[in-house]
């Protein structure tokens, strides 16, 4: 492994550093530094290295770098050295064992240098166990979160939590017990490394002072440390069971929810009596928090699911109620259409018989009275018809098709003009209308209403002029019908589209006050809007919009 190339960085390092400067750098460094020779024998170690590893300098100088390695790998793998020789810089990840036997993860930064023609290696050793732990936790947390995001049940998630904490200390066994408030007992949540007989025996143990580590922790809501099961009074009744399962220490941390409720316990067991170190205490607290996260999440998920089911059931119930109400409404309108019409027909019919058969016995007043009866019966008939078509509209299914708006307007106008008195002169100006989409029958009804209104309210205008146009905007197309008829007072505009509201009396213009409310209903069902502008005595413009396809 010696390098004899005088241009290599090895000699450059040596040249750059004077002896004194290097000594200051060596001892003053906050990282552990070891120097070994070509064979790996240690020839120097700084104070920090001695402190961290737990050996005296003298002890270390008797050792080889390979003696410090806890793992099976050795530093001098061919590949690592090949890289090193290329760049004179090498970083290795290793596990080192301290004098006390405990191991920790290190990152070794290698630098080679040449001294009196011999190659030496400077190893700066950084303790990366903390960093590795955090990384592992991050990884494990991500896995559990993924499970939580999916459909995994609570026990599967808790299993992962336990496994991830056990991974941090492979000599430990972790368990999670879940608290049952009703029975004040603890049941197995996850204990994959415990034998089944142990889990079955522990399942359902009572919560109480002095009942094992977990029962006591759940009772006191405080961390319970039993470092020797064999001698601790809490474990007296369970001692044999614990020994059979091969555990001799048990530390138990209560899991407490964000709202302060007892949720369960998180426990760490070891195969031999053991007192927790800082890292252990930190780990058990972390385990309990991690378990709580999973338990809370599943609880909320279960609640949401229950709420969702409740809502679905509610929707079903409401739907049934609505269907029922709708059926009742249908039955009602059916009887309205049948039962209310019949007496009206009788009133009108028999009044007519009276007029036909007894006209010689009736004077003008009598005849006029009977005519009033007839015309009111007819008016009520129209009202019933309009109310029915209004309620039918809400029930009717909307069937969307392409609508040739121009021909709809033209056909409606032609049809209405056939019923119009010959004396009524009308000029009809129909622009190029944009086509649309909607229910043919419903939109035809709207158009019929607009055109018949234009005709009706311009009946007293000598030269009636009706102009139909359309304007396409970004989102919709507006169709307008303009007339030069009676118009209306803008003051009452808000009443125009309200059911039963009228701006004229029957003597001026007959009507039931339902037509425009039908229009509004139809257009709103199509996702459009209705509007009107008018000037009393000068005419009105009624418009409806339909969304663009």
């Amino acid at each position, binding site marked *: 492994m010696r390098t004899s190339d005088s241009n290599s960085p090895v000699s450059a390092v040596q040249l750059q550093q004077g002896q004194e400067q290097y000594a200051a750098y060596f001892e003053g460094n906050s990282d552990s530094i070891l120097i070994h020779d070509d064979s790996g024998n240690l020839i120097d170690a700084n104070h920090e290295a001695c402190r961290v590893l737990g050996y005296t300098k003298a002890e270390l100088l008797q050792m080889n770098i390979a003696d410090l390695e806890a793992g099976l790998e050795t530093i001098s793998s061919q590949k690592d050295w090949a890289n090193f020789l290329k760049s004179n810089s090498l970083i290795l990840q290793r596990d080192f064992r301290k004098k006390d036997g405990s191991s920790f993860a290190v990152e070794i930064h290698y630098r080679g240098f040449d001294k009196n023609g011999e190659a030496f290696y400077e190893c700066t050793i950084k303790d990366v166990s903390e960093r590795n732990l955090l990384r592992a936790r991050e990884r494990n947390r991500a896995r559990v979160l993924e499970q939580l995001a999916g459909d995994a049940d609570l026990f599967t998630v808790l299993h992962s939590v336990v496994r991830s904490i056990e991974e941090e200390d492979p000599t430990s066994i972790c368990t999670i017990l879940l608290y049952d408030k009703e029975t004040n007992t603890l049941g197995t949540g996850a204990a994959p490394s415990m034998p089944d007989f142990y889990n079955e025996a522990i399942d359902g143990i009572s919560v109480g002072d002095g009942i094992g580590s977990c029962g006591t922790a759940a009772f006191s809501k405080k961390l319970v440390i039993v470092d020797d099961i064999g001698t601790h009074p809490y474990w007296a009744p369970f001692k044999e069971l614990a020994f059979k399962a091969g555990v001799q220490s048990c530390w138990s941390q209560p899991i407490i929810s964000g709202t302060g409720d007892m949720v369960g316990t998180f426990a760490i067991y070891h195969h031999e009596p053991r007192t927790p170190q800082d890292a252990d205490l930190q780990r058990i607290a972390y385990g309990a928090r991690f378990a709580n996260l999973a338990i809370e999440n599943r609880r909320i998920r279960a609640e949401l699911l229950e709420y969702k089911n409740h809502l679905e059931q509610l929707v079903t119930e409401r739907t049934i109620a609505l269907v029922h109400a709708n059926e009742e409404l249908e039955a009602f309108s059916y009887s309205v*259409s*049948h*039962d209310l019409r*019949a007496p009206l*027909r*009788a009133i*009108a019919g028999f*009044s007519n018989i009276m007029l036909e058969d007894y006209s010689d016995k009736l004077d003008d007043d009598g005849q006029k009275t009977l005519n009033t009866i*007839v015309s009111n019966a007819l008016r009520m008939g129209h009202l019933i018809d309009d109310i029915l078509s209004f309620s039918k509209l809400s029930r009717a299914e909307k069937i969307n098709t392409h609508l040739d708006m121009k021909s709809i307007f033209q056909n409606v106008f032609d049809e209405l003009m056939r019923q119009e008195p010959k004396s009524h002169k009308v000029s009809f100006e129909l622009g190029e209308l944009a086509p649309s989409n909607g229910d043919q029958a419903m939109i035809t009804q709207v158009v019929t209403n607009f055109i018949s209104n234009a005709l009706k309210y311009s009946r007293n205008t000598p030269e009636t002029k009706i102009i139909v146009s359309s304007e396409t905007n970004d989102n919709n197309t507006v169709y307008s019908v303009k007339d030069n008829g009676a118009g209306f007072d803008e003051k009452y505009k808000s009443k125009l589209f309200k059911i039963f509201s009228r701006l004229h009396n029957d003597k001026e213009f007959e009507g039931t006050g339902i037509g425009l409310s039908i229009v509004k209903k139809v257009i709103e069902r199509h996702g459009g809007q209705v509007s009107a502008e008018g000037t009393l005595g000068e005419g009105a413009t009624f418009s409806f919009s339909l969304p663009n396809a």
Partner: protein
Amino acid sequence: MNIKEYPEVLLVEDREEDATLTIRALKKYNLINDIKWLEDGQHALDYLFGTGPEKVLQAVPKLILLDLKLPRVNGLEVLEQIKSSEGLKNTPVIIMTSSNEDVDIKKAYDLGVNSYIVKPIDFGGFAEAVKQLGMYWLILNQPPK
């Protein structure tokens, strides 16, 4: 066969007023001499099928005017029995009703009704409707022998 001398028209209508108006209109235009008026569906079936207490065997009118909403047996049920009877199925049946419900109209046609007329409220319209149907079914139309 003891077939009763049948009337030209059988009118099944529970409302006396409507019956009076119908009969008046038919008579006014000299469309009929003879009309039998029954007030409910069961009566109509008994009369037509000879199952009633009157012990009348089958009666076959030229035309049956049938209301929908009838006591006991409704118009659609009467229609169904008429149209599934060998002896009566060719007799024209006209529904005359106040109901313009689409379901009723569809059902009536499914059962084989010959016409469906919604009775107008105004007497002029009503009389005109009765006149037209009388003219068509009693005079213009050629039934099978």
